[in-house]
């Protein structure tokens, strides 16, 4: 009798605790407010030329087109695929088509989706950087809305998401939000650099390390990390990692994609090509100034998928790297990797050389690179691919030679080079 009563009471207490915890978590993600999606037409927003120009500029800085356009497709008409650990997601149509796009959306609903990541379709997947866009001022969100409204409508229908359980259920996103999402207040735009970096620029989406549930915790914020699935490492953005740039060099780098300390490649080449090259000089200076003021964070543990892992202490690391370097690299990068003539970057302090993972170095040696064309660098110099000329063992050897001052545990073996092979385009 006593035992049964005890079990009953324990169960009730545990249940009550669970309910209380759920309520607390639900309250911490904003309670019911995020799910109250405004309906109706709402008041109109200004769409004068100044507002549209402001919206166009913000849409560029947010690089909306990069995710909401397919290769060769109608700009902003959606359908770009995102391969994630949970399945494949497709971006939505942002053009003002009434059925397929945002034609029916009021400014209030658009603002709500940008602030809370919830629309008439329910909670949105966090590949959409609403945690950053939430920080924009109302005036900026309205200008973006006005610009998108002025696009030519496209009836393009993005494919349906193909996600595994439980990610395929929008209710699972409510649980995700309870665990990982905390509403962020709009920022005042007094620190323009911080406003651009943490708001519309959403730099942390790539330059952070994700934790449980692919959330971005404060610990890994802008501390650098692997772009899961795409096979690139994004460096930390802080005073330490950007020390080699002067503020004006960094501002130029953001707009031109090139600098005495390195050239953009991989996903950052796209960011510069489709977004940052449009930065005004003043905004580039503000961003550079802010980035160089960010205090360094302790690097979090990297999350590596199978194709991003590297050997460490076992495997064939090669011992002829110096000889291969002399033959294949020195003509352009200098005998000691010091760079040459402004067009051939120094390797000494390059991200690919100093990163905790050799993945960027391996991929650039394998596939070469063409920097983005920008007004400041309209005719870029390119790096040849070596996949046809060098074996995996030779690529491992030369990468280990270039990275010879890095910890032994980050050496790359021939078998790792093979696992890292393959170009991910979109």
């Amino acid at each position, binding site marked *: 009798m006593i035992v049964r009563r005890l079990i009953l009471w324990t169960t009730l207490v545990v249940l009550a605790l669970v309910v209380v915890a759920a309520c607390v978590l639900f309250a911490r993600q904003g309670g019911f407010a995020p799910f109250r999606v405004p309906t109706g037409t709402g008041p109109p927003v200004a769409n004068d030329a100044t507002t549209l120009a402001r919206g166009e500029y913000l849409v560029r800085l947010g690089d909306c087109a990069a995710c909401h356009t397919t290769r060769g497709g109608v700009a902003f008409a959606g359908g770009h695929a995102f391969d994630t650990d949970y399945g494949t997601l497709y971006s939505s149509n942002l053009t003002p088509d009434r059925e397929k796009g945002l034609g029916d959306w009021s400014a209030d609903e658009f603002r709500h989706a940008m602030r809370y990541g919830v629309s008439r379709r329910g909670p949105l997947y966090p590949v959409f950087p609403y945690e950053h866009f939430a920080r924009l001022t109302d005036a900026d969100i309205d200008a973006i809305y006005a610009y998108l409204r002025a696009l030519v409508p496209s009836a393009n229908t993005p494919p349906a998401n193909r996600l595994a359980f439980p990610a395929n259920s929008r209710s699972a996103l409510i649980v995700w939000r309870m665990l990982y999402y905390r509403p962020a207040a709009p920022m005042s735009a007094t620190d323009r650099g911080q406003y651009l970096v943490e708001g519309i620029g959403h730099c942390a989406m790539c330059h952070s390390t994700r934790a449980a549930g692919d959330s971005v915790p404060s610990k890994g914020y802008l501390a650098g990390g692997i772009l899961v699935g795409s096979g690139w490492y994004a460096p930390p953005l802080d005073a330490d990692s950007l020390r080699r740039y002067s503020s004006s060099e960094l501002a130029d780098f953001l707009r031109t994609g090139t600098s005495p300390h390195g050239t953009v490649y991989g996903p950052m080449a796209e960011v510069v090509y489709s977004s940052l090259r449009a930065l005004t000089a003043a905004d580039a200076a503000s961003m550079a100034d802010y980035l160089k003021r960010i205090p360094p964070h302790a690097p979090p543990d990297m999350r590596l998928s199978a194709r991003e892992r590297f050997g460490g202490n076992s495997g064939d690391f090669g011992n002829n790297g110096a000889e291969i370097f002399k033959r294949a690299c020195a003509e352009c990068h200098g005998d000691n990797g010091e760079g040459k003539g402004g*067009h051939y970057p120094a390797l000494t302090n390059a991200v690919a050389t100093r990163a905790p993972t050799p993945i960027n170095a391996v991929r650039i040696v394998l596939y070469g690179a063409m920097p*983005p064309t920008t007004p400041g660098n309209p*005719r870029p110099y390119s790096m*040849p691919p070596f996949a046809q000329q060098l074996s995996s063992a030779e690529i491992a050897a030369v990468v280990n030679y270039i990275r010879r001052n890095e910890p032994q545990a980050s050496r790359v073996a021939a078998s790792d080079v093979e696992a890292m092979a393959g170009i991910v385009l979109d």
Partner: protein
Amino acid sequence: MTIVTALSAAMPRLPICIALFASAATATATAAAGNDDLSDRLAACAACHGKNGEGAQGSEYYPHLAGKPAGYLFEQLRGFRDGRRISTMMTWFVQFVDDTYLQEIAEHYSKELPRTRAADTGADMLTDERRAVAERLVQHGDPGRGLPACIECHGQALTGLEPGIPALLGLPADYVVAQFGAWRNGVRHGAPPDCMHDVANAIAVEDIRAVATWLSQQSNIDSARPAPAGSFVPPKACGSLPHKDAAP
């Protein structure tokens, strides 16, 4: 680096320096117009297509670029960037390059001398019977299948036609076969009307290899350029290029 070591490092390059100096006078005018030699910038292209776009020695696949019409090369580069033509490696390089630079790259290679030797001396020999089939299709096509002759569009000497039709001489056989497959399967598109899509669907599958092998064995020893624009009118409607149907 001391002056002595710098000099000794430069010594082996002296003949190159002299050659550069000799051509400097002619180069100055173009350099002033921001049109300096692009080859230093295009090291990535050279890895597969050769330093001057002549094609790589012993390559079994990569086509030459040298001397092809600039309009053709520009359209291909844009196609790789915008998804009309699929090659992961090519898209990787051109995806963040604007039209202005692509046009300059196309013009750069179009000015180089066309490749002069047959690409595929190692390709399978053609039997007399297969050779006859290939030559018949190249010279006369197959009117019964609606298949024009190669020479009707690519020129009597197969050296192409400005501004958009490439030469067919000295292309690796595997490359030509792969293009026929790509047109048939819809992974390579020309600007509509897509003439080569129609041609690739009209030719008998078993004849593709014979034609490709025959073409790969032809050379262009005189480095003949594509025929000038308008010097003849191709019979098939092809993208934005002039053709018979549209001619007055």
